[in-house]
Structures are given as C-alpha cells and as structure tokens.
C-alpha cells in the first residue's frame, strides 16, 4: 500500500533485517519491508554534532541498515572490547529483553565502564559504515537475564486510605542480586518514586528513562470505595499491565539496571514511602517535559548544528508523537464503538429469545432460540475483540506517546548542557577581559585572583564541553536503542493482536456452523 518511494513522514520503528529476509518479502506484495520496520536514519560515524566530524560517511538511507557506528565490535562478536575508545561497545550489550532468559556470557560490569572515561578522539578510521553482513552478525543478540513480572493486585486497607499492592517478582541469574528468584510487594507510588529517583539522576546524562503509567484519581477512588464492578476490575488490570511494562522497560535498559535504586526497588522488602509523587505522574510528567522545552526555547543563543542528526531526529520524534496521538484517539473510538455494539447485541439476543418463545412453529421456535444463543456468543466475541483492541493496541500507543515525550526530554537535556557550556565560555571570556583590564591597571593582588578565576573557569569550560559531548553520544545511543526496542515491541504486539483476531474469527465460524443445521431443520 505504502509506496516504497513514500518515506515522508518516516514510519515507526527501525529494525535490522538480514539480507535473506528481503527476498522473502518480494512476493508480489511489494513494500513488505517498507512498513514499520524501516529505519530511515543515516548511518553516521560518531560525532559530537557540533564540530565538523571527520570522515563521516553519510550513506543514503538504506532500507535495512541500522544506525550503528561501531563495527570493530560486531566483528569481534564480543562485548569485551578492549578498545576503550569505542563508546559503542555497549551498544551491543543490551537487546532482547528476553523471555528465554538464557544468560549471556557478558559481564555487565563492562557496560558502565567506558561510559565515564571515554575520550572523544574517535579515530574516524575505526568508524566504518555498517553493512548488511555486519547486521547479520548482529543477529546473535545478547540477552539479559532478568525477568520481572507484576502480578496479584490486592487491596490493602479500607476506605480512602486503601491502596492496591502488587507483587513484583524477579527471576535472574545475575550476580548483582542476592538470590535467583525473589519477590516484593509494591504500591503505585513506589513505582512513581523509582521514576523520580531515576529521572533525577539519569536524564541529566541524556538517558531515556521510561515514564510510569498515569495517575488516575477517578479510577483509584472507585477501587478504594470498594466497587467490584467490571470497570474497576478493568482499571486495576490495566494498571497492573502498565506497571509491568514499565518495570520491564527499566530492567531491560543496561544502565538503569545497574542503578542501585532499581535493585533496591526489586529486592528490598521494606521500601520507604515515596513522597512528592504528585509531580511525576501523568500531567505532572508532561509539565516537567514541557518546562524543559520552554527553557530551551527561551535560549537566546541558538545552537549551530553542523551535524543535522540531532535536529532531524528531534523533528522525527515530534512528528511521530503527533501521529501516535491521532492513532490512539482512533483506536479509542473504535474500542468504544465495539463496546456499544456489544451492548446492543446482548439486548438483541434477549429479544430474540423472547420471540423464539412466542413462535408457534416448533422448529422455527427452536431455531430462533438457537439464534439468540449465537448472538449472545457474538456479544462475547465483540467484547473480547474490544479488549484486545484496547489492551494490545491502545495501551501500546499510549506507552509510546509517553516514551516519545521522554525522548524529547533527552534532547532538551542535551541542549541545556550545551547552554551551560556556552554560558561558561562567555563567563570565561569576561574573566579574561577583566584580567586584561587589570593588567593594564597594574593591580597585582587583584590580578592574581583574576588568574585563579580564569583557571577555574577554563576547567569548567573543559568540563562542560566534555559533558556536552558525552550527553550527545548518550542521546544518540539511547535513541538507537529506543528505536530497536520500539520495532520489537510493535512487532510483537501486532502479532499478538493478529493472533487474538484469528482465534476470534475461528470461534465465530464454529458458532455459525453449529447454527446452520438448526436453520435447515425448520419446516
């Protein structure tokens, strides 16, 4: 449907596709690969994004290439790169949050290593453009051995002080945990508290911290008050599933997993209550992001990006967020219509049953009663389809709308880092001017002080510049990782959705096939 030439706006997530897969798809249905699995980003070498990078190879967007800057690592097929210069050693460590839970042989400690000590004298020579063969090697993904599940919602307490406690179970063979399997009970505000701690620390580095699900006063009030109606049940289930996805995303992030707060959250029996979680959920979260954006917009000095990667990517992210919002609204409305259809079908089934009772022809009467039963089953099917639409599709979209907000937040952090650097530079400049004046005015004591200040600020400038470069690289890496995860996520959810549909269709066929002989028996 989508023409292969039509790449505007760029479709969702990216992924890596081995060469072999390509030919499979050319089965008359062209464009198979075009859809959600296309990554339009340019494979570019590492660069800061501000200065002119050397030896950058800008390949035209290749349908199946992925933005990977480091190749030596893939070739060596191991994470233990002794090449400390290569920041992207870590890029291969993450990957599939995997159900099979096979432990990778990778030592996670290598993950955090290069991050802080890397220099950015990347030799351009080591950065080669990715090729499809390298992508194929990539296939041998490493997987993390951490499985987390959120289950068993239980109401604790009564009245307005009541809350839901969830069981958070972890299964892992990683040495950083005390045991292989363990579980704790957590409440919603604990999850929010975790996010608060993580975002304060990590987002300053340009990390994409997954946002938690939204707070809901209405939903929770109903639960507190003790209503057992289906919508409360649905609300709790929805929240449980969202919390599970949230924590799964956190542990599948290599740097976040290392964070002691995460470990504490998973392991510690008695977690201190999180306070001030108002600010961080739902509207609060968005406010925070938007505040950052505002600060960026107010910047008087605009960054001069000679590498357009950041600008382009940011634009992409914004566009995608918009598209997802629209799509989400549509899916929501579809869910509502289906629910309405459910209700109407149930009502109709009852009416049909009454009609069947009134009917004086025996065989027809029986057929009409059977029809009423079939319609009842149809109502159930519609119900399940609506749930599928919602839990699989709509929630996926909602998650990614929030995640894209977090991605935007990252970019803004980078801008602020740049701003800090610029401001430091301008302060340094002022100090130098002041020194020059003092030299002229010949005041030796003040001169000494000025020289000290200059040294101090020179160090700061260097530090901020380093920070800025570092955050740039992190952002890049994070975005790549995010896109990969997104592609996987969407793929797997779509498959789930389709499989649910298939089941539903098959049951529908059975229902009507059972009814047919009844209809034929009418005489």
């Amino acid at each position: 449907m989508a023409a292969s030439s039509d790449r505007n706006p760029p479709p969702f997530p990216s992924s890596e596709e081995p060469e072999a897969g390509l030919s499979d798809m050319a089965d008359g249905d062209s464009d198979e690969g075009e859809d959600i699995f296309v990554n339009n980003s340019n494979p570019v070498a590492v660069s800061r994004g501000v200065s002119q990078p050397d030896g950058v190879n800008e390949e035209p967007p290749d349908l199946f290439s992925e933005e990977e800057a480091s190749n030596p690592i893939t070739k060596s097929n191991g994470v233990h790169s002794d090449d400390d210069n290569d920041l992207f050693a870590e890029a291969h460590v993450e990957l599939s949050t995997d159900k099979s839970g096979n432990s990778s042989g990778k030592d996670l400690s290598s993950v955090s290593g290069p991050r802080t000590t890397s220099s950015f004298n990347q030799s351009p020579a080591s950065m080669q453009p990715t090729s499809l063969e390298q992508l194929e090697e990539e296939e041998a993904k490493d997987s993390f051995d951490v499985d987390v599940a959120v289950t068993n919602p239980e109401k604790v307490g009564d009245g307005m002080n009541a809350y839901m406690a969830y069981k958070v179970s972890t299964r892992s063979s990683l040495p950083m945990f005390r045991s292989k399997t363990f579980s704790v009970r957590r409440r919603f505000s604990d999850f929010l508290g975790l996010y608060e701690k993580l975002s304060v620390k990590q987002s300053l580095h340009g990390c994409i911290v997954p946002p938690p699900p939204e707070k809901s006063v209405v939903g929770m009030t109903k639960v507190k008050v003790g209503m057992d109606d289906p919508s409360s049940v649905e609300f709790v289930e929805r929240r449980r599933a969202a919390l599970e996805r949230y924590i799964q995303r956190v542990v599948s992030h290599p740097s976040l997993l290392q964070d002691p707060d995460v470990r504490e959250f998973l392991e510690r029996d008695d977690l201190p209550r999180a306070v001030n979680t108002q600010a961080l959920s739902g509207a609060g979260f968005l406010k925070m992001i938007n505040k950052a954006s505002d600060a960026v917009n107010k910047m008087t000095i605009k960054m001069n990006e000679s590498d357009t990667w950041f600008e382009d990517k940011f634009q992409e992210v914004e566009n995608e967020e918009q598209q997802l919002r629209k799509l989400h609204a549509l899916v929501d409305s579809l869910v509502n219509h289906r629910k309405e259809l459910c209700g109407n079908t149930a009502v109709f089934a009852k009416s049909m049953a009454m009609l069947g009772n009134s009917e004086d022809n025996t065989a027809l009467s029986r057929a009409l009663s059977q029809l009423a039963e079939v319609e009842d089953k149809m109502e159930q099917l519609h119900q399940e389809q609506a749930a599928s639409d919602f839990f699989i599709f709509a929630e996926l979209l909602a998650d990614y709308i929030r995640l894209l907000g977090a991605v935007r937040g990252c970019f803004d952090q980078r801008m602020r880092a740049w701003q800090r650097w610029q401001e430091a530079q301008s302060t340094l400049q002022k100090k130098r001017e002041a020194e020059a004046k003092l030299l002229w005015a010949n005041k030796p004591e003040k001169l000494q002080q000025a020289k000290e200040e200059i040294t101090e600020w020179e160090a700061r400038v260097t530090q901020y510049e380093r920070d800025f470069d570092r955050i740039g690289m992190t952002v890049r890496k994070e975005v790549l990782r995010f896109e990969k995860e997104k592609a996987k996520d969407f793929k797997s959810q779509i498959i789930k959705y389709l499989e649910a549909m298939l089941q539903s269709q098959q049951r529908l066929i059975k229902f009507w096939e059972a009814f047919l002989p009844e209809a034929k028996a009418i005489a």
Partner: protein
Amino acid sequence: MRSVSVDLNNDASLLIDIPDALCERDKVKFTVHTKTTLSTFQKPEFSVPRQHEDFIWLHDTLVETEDYAGLIIPPAPPKPDFESPREKMHKLGEGEATMTKEEYAKMKQELEAEYLAVFKKTVQVHEIFLQRLSSHPMLSKDRNFQIFLEYDQDLSVRRKNAKEMFGGFFKNMVKSADEVLISGIKEVDDFFEQEKTFLLDYYSKIKDSTAKAEKMTRSHKSTTWNFFYLFIFLTLKLGKLSDLFEKLRKVEGRVASDQELKLTELLRYYMRDIQAAKDLLYRRARALADYENSNKALDKARLKSKDIPQAEEHQQQCLHKFDKLSESGKRELTGFKGRRVVAFRKNLIEMAELEIKHAKVSNIMTGSHAERTHTLLD
C-alpha cells in the same frame, strides 16, 4: 436478490420487476417493468416510471376496498431513507480541506457504496410489494393495480383525489381501535381465538426484536466506519498492516449489511406483515360486532313490531359479510403462517452461510498476514 420473501415472481402470466431506478436528490424514480400473458392488459410487455408515493396510493386504495376486507393486504414499502449516507456526504464535504486527496477519494468511494446499498434495499422492498400483489389470486386482478402497472401518465392526480376522499383519517382510526376491539370481542371460532392470541403476542415481540436488531445493525455499521478512519490513518504508517485492516473492514462491512438484509429486514418485513394480518382480524372483529348489533336491532324491531324486514335483511347482510371474512381470513392466515416459516428458514440459512463465508475469508487474510509478520520477526 430477494431477501425477505420466497420467490414470488414465478407465475408467468404476470411477471413484475424493478430493473432500475433513478435517484434525483430526494426522490427515487422506480422503473416498473411488467411482462404478461393476460388479455386484461393492452400490451404483453411495458414499463412505467413510478414514485414512492404511487406505491402508497396503491396500497391505501387496496386497504380501503371493501371487497378485500378478508385479505391480508401486503404492507406498504417504507419510504426510501438516504439520511445516513447523505449526512456523511455532507460531513465529507465540510472536512474536505483537512484531508489528503487520497483520503478524500477513499471516503467518497465508501460513501457511494453505502448509498448504493440503501438504494438496492429500497428497490427490493418496493419490488416485493408489487410481486406479493401479482401472486395473489384476488389482488392481482385489482383494477387500480392494473392502472398502476400500465398507466403511462403521472399518477399524481389520482393520488390527490384519493387523499381528498379518504383523508387518511380512516387508517388512523383503524390503528388506534384495533387492539381494543380485537381483544374485547367474544370469539366463537377456535381457530381465530388462537390466531388472535398468537398474533397479538408475536407482534409485540417482533416489534421489539426489530427495534433491537436495527440498533445492533447501526452499531455494527458505525464500527466499520470507525475501522475505516483507522485504516485511512494507518495507510500512512503501517504499510501492510493497513492493507489487512482495509480488507477486514470491507468484509466487516459486508457482514453488517448481510446481517441487516437477512435478519433486520426480515424482522421488519414480518412485523409489518403481521400488522396487516392484525388489520384483517380487526376488520373481521368489526364485522362480528356489526352482526351482533344487527341481531340486537332485529330483536328490538320484533319487540316493537316495526321495520322487521329491513332489520332482517340487515342482519343477513352482516352475517354474510362476517362469514365471508371468516372464510377468507382463515385461508389467508393459514397461508401466512406457512409463508412466514418458509421465509424465516430461507433467510436464516442464508445469513448463517454468509457469516461463515465472511469469517473464513477474514480468517485466511489475517492468518497470512500474521505469518508474514512472523517471518519478519525472525
């Protein structure tokens, strides 16, 4: 495609169909085509243009014909209702600026399909009305029916005259009185007693079912429309998946309209048919009441020894009329039973078969897409 009644058009002496129709703004012009071997008609084959109001005129004159009091007059076809597609067309026009050319074209296409579906439905329902008449031994010989089929001028003058004569007043009177009269009368005949009980009860149930079915069908359709907006949106983003959604939506749409034709329309039609049967019961009950009144009048006359012959004659007329109605009514109602059962059988079978067919098609499409998505994942 006849959905509601069994094949009516199989007596070669008088074959009627509506081969095409024109839609002009609000009005639909049906082309009524007749093929006949009967000498009562001037030509063996001919066509005339007719409007919906002409059908109503024909129906009303039949209802008001005394001679047909003992017959179930086929229910009048409902007015063509294009409101839903027209409203959507209007919205489409308003929203044109915000859509891409491709989106607009697709929406327009969808709307035209919906329009066409409504159109087909109304043609069918008008056609069935005429075919019921042509297959009825008495009604097919009706003079006004012949005029309707043959008269190549505009019927509007006749329509106006009829309106002036009867003013529609009589019909309303019938509607409000029948339940009370029918249930109040002391029935002498077992057959009619049973029929009365059955029809009154069945009518209220089928009326309810029809309303609920209509609601369900409307919901079903709006779900497919939603699916459609979703599809349009997905076209931009999800490549092959949007293809699947498009195909599924088309199938869903067909399911909804098949369900409407086979089930909702069936219920609707028989609801109206049963009303016509109730009207027959009413007329008979009326005749019975008249007869009983004439008996009372005769007794009075005998008491007073005045006007006895007139009273006797009047009583005889009433009795005769009542007997005629009872005899004819019994025949009609028995035929009606059989007709109803056969029609339900046919439509329920067809509906089940269509549902199975559509579900299988959807299943295959979804399955193949799921497979392709899987291979992409590996």
